[in-house]
């Protein structure tokens, strides 16, 4: 994440420098690249679209032990690379592959059956950290550029998205208790990575500035959304949202 921001700053600095150089050297403005193909590279941050949770049941002391988790994803990094092809006048179609990662955290609540008596569960709560979340996939973009100035353009983006989501989900727990076993404390949890493909959509806007004949820098904002139902084990499913609000910077190379 920090690396992405540093990179973004460097790009903007480079853009500013290029602009200053061009101001010192009077010349005609650079023309927009005439190529039909534009390579796209973006890096940024992604804010996950909301919390998710699990509800599953373990068996402890010959009784059902319901477990509930409430998880959310921290802001993570996202990297995109792809290509756009101008297909009609200003209209382009692009395909951008992306990878994103984040870390999930939250809380766990469980009702652990008593070893001696039926229907006397012990409430157990604990914090969960370090649940890895990864997304891969492609955004298919329909891009419509709006010219803002000779050097700047605003591009509206949108289209379907295809996600592969990997999420570490809690599958088991251990706890500590002692006689008379009326209370228990969470000791440890174990998790498994569940993986699922799904579809969604993306919409976005990017502001680009030409910095050389064939290169532009870009500021990008995108909202992507997809939902998959992950299964860590039989009866242990979780509906997880993919995507989120993305903010990043990038480079565009025209051919």
């Amino acid at each position, binding site marked *: 994440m920090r690396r992405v921001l540093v990179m973004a700053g460097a790009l903007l600095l480079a853009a500013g420098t290029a602009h200053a150089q061009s101001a010192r050297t009077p010349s005609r403005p650079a023309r927009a690249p005439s190529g039909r193909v534009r390579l796209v590279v973006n890096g940024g941050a992604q804010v996950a679209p909301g919390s998710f949770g699990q509800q599953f049941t373990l068996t402890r*002391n*010959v009784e059902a032990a319901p477990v509930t988790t409430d998880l959310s994803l921290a802001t993570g990094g996202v990297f995109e690379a792809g290509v756009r092809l101008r297909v009609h006048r200003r209209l382009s179609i692009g395909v951008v592959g992306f990878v994103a990662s984040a870390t999930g955290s939250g809380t766990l609540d469980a009702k652990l059956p*008593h*070893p*001696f*008596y*039926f229907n006397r569960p012990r409430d157990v709560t*604990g*914090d*969960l*950290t*370090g*649940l890895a979340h990864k997304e891969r996939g492609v955004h298919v973009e329909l891009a419509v550029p709006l010219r803002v100035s000779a050097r700047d353009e605003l591009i509206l983006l949108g289209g379907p998205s295809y996600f592969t989501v990997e999420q*570490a989900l*809690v599958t088991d727990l251990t706890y500590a208790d002692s*006689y*008379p*076993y009326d209370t228990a404390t*969470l*000791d*440890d*949890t*174990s*998790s498994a990575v569940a993986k699922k493909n799904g579809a969604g959509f993306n919409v976005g806007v990017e502001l680009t500035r030409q910095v050389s004949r064939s290169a532009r820098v870009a500021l990008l904002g995108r909202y992507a959304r997809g939902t998959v139902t992950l299964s860590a084990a039989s009866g242990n499913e979780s509906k997880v949202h993919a995507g989120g609000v993305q903010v990043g910077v990038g480079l565009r190379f025209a051919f």
Partner: protein
Amino acid sequence: MRARIRALTSSIVALLAVASTTAPALAQPRRTAALAAEPSSIRAWDATVDAMLRGGDLEVRHAEADTLLSGRTHVRLQQFHRGVPVYGAVLTRQTDDIGATVSIFGTTYSGIDVDVRPVLTVTDAAAVVAARTGVDLGPERPPTLVVLPVEDGFRLVYRASAFTAEGGTELFIDARDGAVLEELDAAQRQSAVGTGTGVLGDQKKISVSSATGTFTTSDLLRPPSLVTYDMRENLQRTLDFLNGRITLGSTDRAADSDNHWTDGAAVDAHAYAGYFYDYYFKRFGRRGIDDNNFRMLSLVHPVPRAAVLSQSNAVIGAFYLNAFYAGGGVMVYGEGLPSTVTAGGQRWNFLSGAIDVVAHELSHGVTDFTSGLLYRNESGALNESFSDMMGTAVEFYYQPPGSGSMQADYLIGEDVITPGGIRSMENPAAYGQPDHYARRVILPLSSDNGGVHTNSGIPNQVYYLAIEGGTNRTSGLSVQGVGVSNREQIEKTMYRAFTQMMPADATFAVARAVTIQAATNLYGASSAATRAITQAWTAVGVN
């Protein structure tokens, strides 16, 4: 992914472990793990081992040739501190055919500053073992001195193993003051929770142990040794055990292959013994029969139920229609009668199927270790009554109030002796017991030890009236009870009076004074409990 504190602790421990392997220090007591398999670490540890051997801090305990790798030899070295072995401090050194060290693994301790002169003698330590386990160690297995690493340093202790019918125990006894620092199960067993069907067809959990694919009725989750033995209808074996002629082992425990138990008598005896322990612990903070986790052994199926008609009246009375506390933490539960046979117009199921019966018998054990109420005449009736009080208290603790099966009431044994049970605390006269001192029976000791099971109706009525209130049928005097929501007050009053204040030869009059004093101490002279106890004794004619 770990709970945070756990993770932090684990990390610190791991770091310390790493540090201890790389930089052993001598100034502070610390454990050093040897994991030497590389030339550099082998050289360092070789030097250390040789120095310790020269200094007498290590001794060769065992050496043997490697049967799988020709030429290799394994030497096991024990660390000593001034001639006393350090518990767990053992190194193994592997050498090749020319005597060069190949590996060294194990643990040593440094910074040991324990005085190895014990205050206790071996005999003293054996006495601690006997008090703790009931085992008199023979000359072949005396307690031995070891230096025991503990959290804050080291202790000079006696180490001893004692084996009883219910398993083995390893004790570490402080050689200065006789305190038991550690007590370990010498047998390798695992706890397990199973489900069982009780005598009345109810489902309950039972805490058992598992080993080699078989589950047996040894509760490893509660602090005391809590074991249920299936006597397999062998009366002679039962008698031999009760008379100390044989011991019972793990094969005598009730057993099940899938941990879904169907022998109701064993299930209930085992589960209810645990319930009894839990009740005393939660209500009174008491740890079992002797308040020191004394063993609780239950014997079921002492006789063949189907053969009842061929048995003598004495055997029927003792092992079919009876349950009894045999001393030493041993309970025997009668087999009841076949479903086609009745006694006194009542059907008798397995006696262990009634929670009040189980708690009654075990409470005799509590009396044994506390007041020691003499089992004769009025003190004997008080002894019986206290067991009825606690049996009923346990019943109300675990079952909802009501009049049906497995519902709490003031009848004794009503779940397995149907209809009606064998006594009523609410109306003793309905079962031939006196409910008033004026109606007490005076019998010779040869008759029920002076009527201990008859006159117990009088203090039983006190218990009932003190909780529920009402009118004594004989005196017509009314009592304002504390109410069912405050029954705990009367339970605690009776427990305190009977276990801590009651003399062994108490009469009913003494019991009145003691229980009133107990209530006064607990709740005040003008409290509802004190008033209820006082009124109840007056109502039954004990002043």
